């Protein structure tokens, strides 16, 4: 059920521009599905507005499109078809619920995997989270949460090391508008994100989330783990995006995400007009 709620929760985050996205952390149950009970009734759940249901549909369509051709995909297509029908009949809560089910079918919950290593002298413990829901590490009455890929080393009798500080984004400046020539597929790029170094960090996790796009469904969030302090994004559709970066240290764990920054991608309108004119001349 939690997996089924992931999509709704992600959309809940994306609907609040100031809320940083959290990678790999299980979200709380969103209000959109509370009370709907999954019974297929047409009761309108709080927050199940057309826009929310539409976003769920878009996400599920994209997930189905990207899924391999197998039984799971066919089952998801069935749920998606139900969702589309509910949406057409303005049963938005049911549309959201079915779209969630389709998405969850293609994104099943993962097992929890983690490693604990105790040094030969017994005095050092290294905990590494590998997959699935986060784990907690307790030492000296302090607790840390480890998400996927994070690691922490604890010396006996000492407190948990402080996580690294959040990286500071450098480029582009907040709300910068890029005007770029579209590629053959209509996508825009390249855009390079950069941030300041954080002491003790060996990796940086960057997440880019689309807030609005000019045409087509919202693209899925783009995430990348790098050991550099800049990242050239893949080409993206025209629209508005926000991004955050998180520092990861092998001994200290993971920082909180940086303050979110936004940028806009716009097609070079002049180039577009010339092409139209050429077309007329032909």
């Amino acid at each position, binding site marked *: 059920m939690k997996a089924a709620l992931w999509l709704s929760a992600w959309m809940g985050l994306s609907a609040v521009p100031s809320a940083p996205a959290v990678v790999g952390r299980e979200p709380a149950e969103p209000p959109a599905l509370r009370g709907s009970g999954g019974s297929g009734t047409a009761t309108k759940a709080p927050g199940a507005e057309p826009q929310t249901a539409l976003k769920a549909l878009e996400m599920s369509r994209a997930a189905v499109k990207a899924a391999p051709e197998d039984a799971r995909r066919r089952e998801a297509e069935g749920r998606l078809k139900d969702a589309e029908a509910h949406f057409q009949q303005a049963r938005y809560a049911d549309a959201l619920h079915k779209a969630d089910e389709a998405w969850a079918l293609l994104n099943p919950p993962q*097992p*929890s995997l983690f490693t604990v290593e*105790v040094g030969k002298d017994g005095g050092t413990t290294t905990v590494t989270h590998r997959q699935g829901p986060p784990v*907690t*590490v307790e030492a000296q009455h302090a607790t840390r949460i480890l998400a996927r890929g994070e690691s922490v080393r604890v010396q006996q009798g000492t407190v948990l090391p402080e996580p690294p500080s959040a990286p500071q984004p450098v480029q582009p400046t907040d709300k910068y508008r890029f005007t770029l020539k579209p590629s053959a597929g209509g996508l825009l790029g390249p855009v390079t994100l950069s941030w300041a170094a954080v002491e003790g960090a060996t990796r940086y996790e960057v997440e880019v989330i689309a807030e609005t796009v000019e045409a087509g469904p919202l693209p899925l969030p783009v995430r990348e783990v790098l050991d550099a302090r800049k990242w050239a994004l893949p080409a993206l559709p025209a629209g508005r995006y926000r991004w955050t970066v998180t520092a990861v240290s092998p001994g200290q764990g993971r920082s909180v995400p940086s303050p979110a920054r936004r940028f806009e991608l716009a097609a070079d309108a002049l180039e577009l007009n010339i092409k139209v004119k050429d077309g007329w001349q032909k």
Partner: protein
Amino acid sequence: MVNGRRWPPLLLVVALAALPPGCTADEKPRGPTEAPLPPPVPRAHLRDLTGDVQIKRAIADEWSAARNELPLYENDKVRTESGASAQVVFANGSTVHLGGDSLVGIAESKLRTDVTVLRGRVDATLEKPATQSLSVTTPSATVRAGRKIEFQ
């Protein structure tokens, strides 16, 4: 002031009153110590053993060779030699894979942990973290995974 010479008869009266009715000199009183103890419930089982894996029972002094499907009880210990490995499967299905040169202890069920790692490396797996839980304790930290985790 209490007269000390009056205590021996008083103690005798108290002792006689404590004897169960119908108890003769040849019978032992049936106390709670004679109630049959419930059989111990294994906390886990050993599986997928490779190489030299040994076990020491909580009540034993010696290490002995371990074997597959051996039940593990509170305070039992398992150790692997270099190059060996073993899997500890807990009753709820969560598993702890022991690498070589490791030493772990099965925790008492009353404690808020399942296994104590004293040396070496373990890889823990919860196939269904929504319904399973696992706590691993070391000399310096406790790691908790699964349904018991609550975010603050």
